[in-house]
């Protein structure tokens, strides 16, 4: 009787186990599929963004959530909501919890450098997202900010440089100065302009990623330089303030605005279509979301022997969007990414 009960229990357990993974029930072992799935199952992945609730981080998180469900790993998102301190606390806490992969979105170059090194030293592989920190971790996914600003500057040179018939006066609107976008961006702009002495930066200000501040500064710059040719902005969310100032001055289409960002429909393609932005360099956050999914899969399957020792660079392929290259599908929407995946 006892034996029969044990058998029955065993059969039930087996049925339950098979029932829990119905999608792979019938798939023959191709030598990797089961092994890789087993390597990811039950692992723990943690993500500390600058903040949730904006296009970039929501798209990345959507990708990770999809994979967490498909492969049965546990995903923890700690949202510090733009507070560097809260982010540092979250990372310290997570290091103590010892996740299998730690994904960090650093708000500035220095802030989390020590924490990334500490995580690596404790054997936790780290992926850093989009904003380059001084410590690389194991994988760096994101725009090459220098390259991006070179492209922006070249676009500006085309619009305002020799042969354009314009004044050649341009203005630069930086974000937060300690952010790699600004740090590497301004170097790239200055280096590129060395070959174009006809272009002159008449204003180089920072607006803390705040559209309202950017609006105020741009308004003043436009009044002080009536023959201004264009602005280089460093993030779409902030640059809409510049666009509003240009519109207010009644000079949309005459003063150019070269922006950049994650390429979501409302921020990028809509603003190109309605003439707010002239040129837009996109680092396609939807593509980055997929890169992130793959990086995490890779690290879960094959943990580096010494985390942090050989960082891999996965710089995001950049996309230039202007009136001519604003094809349907150049941008993405968060709803679609959430519904259909990156």
């Amino acid at each position: 009787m006892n034996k029969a009960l044990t058998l029955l229990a065993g059969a039930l357990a087996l049925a339950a186990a098979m029932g829990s993974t119905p999608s792979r029930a019938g798939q023959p072992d191709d030598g990797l599929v089961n092994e890789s799935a087993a390597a990811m199952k039950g692992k723990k992945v943690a993500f500390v963004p600058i903040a949730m609730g904006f296009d970039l981080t929501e798209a990345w998180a959507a990708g990770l959530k999809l994979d967490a469900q498909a492969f049965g790993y546990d995903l923890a998102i700690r949202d510090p909501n733009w507070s560097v301190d809260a982010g540092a606390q979250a990372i310290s806490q997570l290091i103590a919890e010892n996740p299998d992969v730690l994904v960090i979105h650093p708000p500035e170059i220095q802030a989390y450098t020590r924490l990334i090194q500490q995580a690596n030293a404790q054997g936790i592989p780290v992926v850093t997202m989009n904003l380059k920190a001084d410590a690389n971790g194991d994988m760096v996914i994101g725009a090459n900010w220098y390259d991006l600003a070179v492209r922006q500057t070249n676009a500006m040179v085309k619009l305002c440089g020799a042969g354009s018939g314009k004044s050649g006066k341009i203005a630069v609107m930086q974000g937060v100065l300690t952010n790699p976008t600004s740090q590497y961006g301004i170097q790239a702009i200055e280096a590129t302009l060395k070959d174009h002495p006809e272009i002159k930066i008449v204003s180089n200000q920072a607006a803390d990623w705040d559209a309202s501040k950017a609006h105020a500064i741009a308004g003043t710059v436009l009044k002080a330089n009536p023959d201004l040719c264009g602005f280089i902005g460093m993030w779409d969310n902030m640059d809409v303030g510049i666009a509003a100032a240009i519109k207010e001055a009644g000079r949309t289409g005459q003063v150019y605005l070269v922006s950049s960002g994650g390429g979501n429909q409302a921020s990028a393609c809509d603003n190109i279509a309605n003439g707010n932005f002239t040129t837009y360099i996109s680092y396609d956050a939807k593509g980055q979301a997929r890169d992130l999914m793959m990086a995490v899969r890779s690290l879960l399957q094959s943990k580096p022997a010494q985390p942090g020792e050989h960082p891999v660079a996965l710089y995001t392929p950049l996309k230039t969007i202007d009136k001519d290259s604003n094809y349907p599908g150049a941008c993405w929407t968060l709803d679609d990414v959430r519904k259909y995946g990156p």
Partner: protein
Amino acid sequence: MNAPADIVRRKPRAISQEAIVFALTAIIFAIFALLLPSFLTGGNLLALVQNVSILGVLGVAMAMAIIGRGIDLSIVATMAVSVAWVLQLTNHGMALEPAILLGFGLALAIGLVNGILVAYVEIPAIFATLAMGTAAYGCVRSLLLEDNLVYLKAAGDTWFKWIGSGAVLGVPNPVLLFAAVALVGEVLLRVTTQGRFLYAMGDNPSAARITGVPMRPLIVLQYVSCAAIAFVAGVIMATSVDSMETRVARSNLVYDVILVVVIGGVGLSGGKGTVRNVVVGTLLIGVLLNGMTIMNVPYTLQNIVKSLVLLAAIVIDSLVNPRDEQTSQQGDI
């Protein structure tokens, strides 16, 4: 023989803080006008005021709170979430007018809770509004708003958009609205009974209570008015930059607002100051920022200069008007 009133009358202040700040503003203004050819143009001067008009409108609200011996640290959060909700509602297809009413109602509700917490639960204003700012931001952001940043899309072609980006006879609307809010604030404070009671309450709450000022309803009214003005500031902000970034609630804008109020001469101890003080404080910041932007002074240096000038204003004030037992008393903060 002196009349009793003459005996108790305090020695008048030699030069008020407001006058010092105004003089400082005038000096800086003159220097910029001499040095910068594009500074003293009509267009630039309007832009100068326009750029600080949101700060000024919020300053009027903050002044009301501070004059009544309170403070409203939730003002920026109220502004951000209520207007962001209006934009989101319209983007989802709601007609503009009901959306505005809902958003305005949300702002008033936040102000009402502030007022009840301060007046009836008797929590000091600084803690009640600090907590309320975070709570309002958190609740609205997680329950009502889908995104930190909400664009002005659906209502972009309506009269609503004109509020912050239009102009009347060449004067940008934000400047006119700042003037209108300042005027209404001044009338409310100086002419209406509630306004006079607010001064009484700020100057000496116990005396005000004994003489029959309805303190608790007045405090509620004070914070509801603050929230209403904050909503106006939010509408100007959203319609001038085509979006509302709720992250502004976590920024240090609220300190800038307190700064323009206090620097202009509204006493933190309550009962002192007028809307004119706010205008003077706002103009000082406006002139500084505008001139330094034209000169293309690096951002970090701008912050240093700004803080040094403000420090100078306070130092001059404390030299000219030394503190004594009467003037050094502080309010709840």
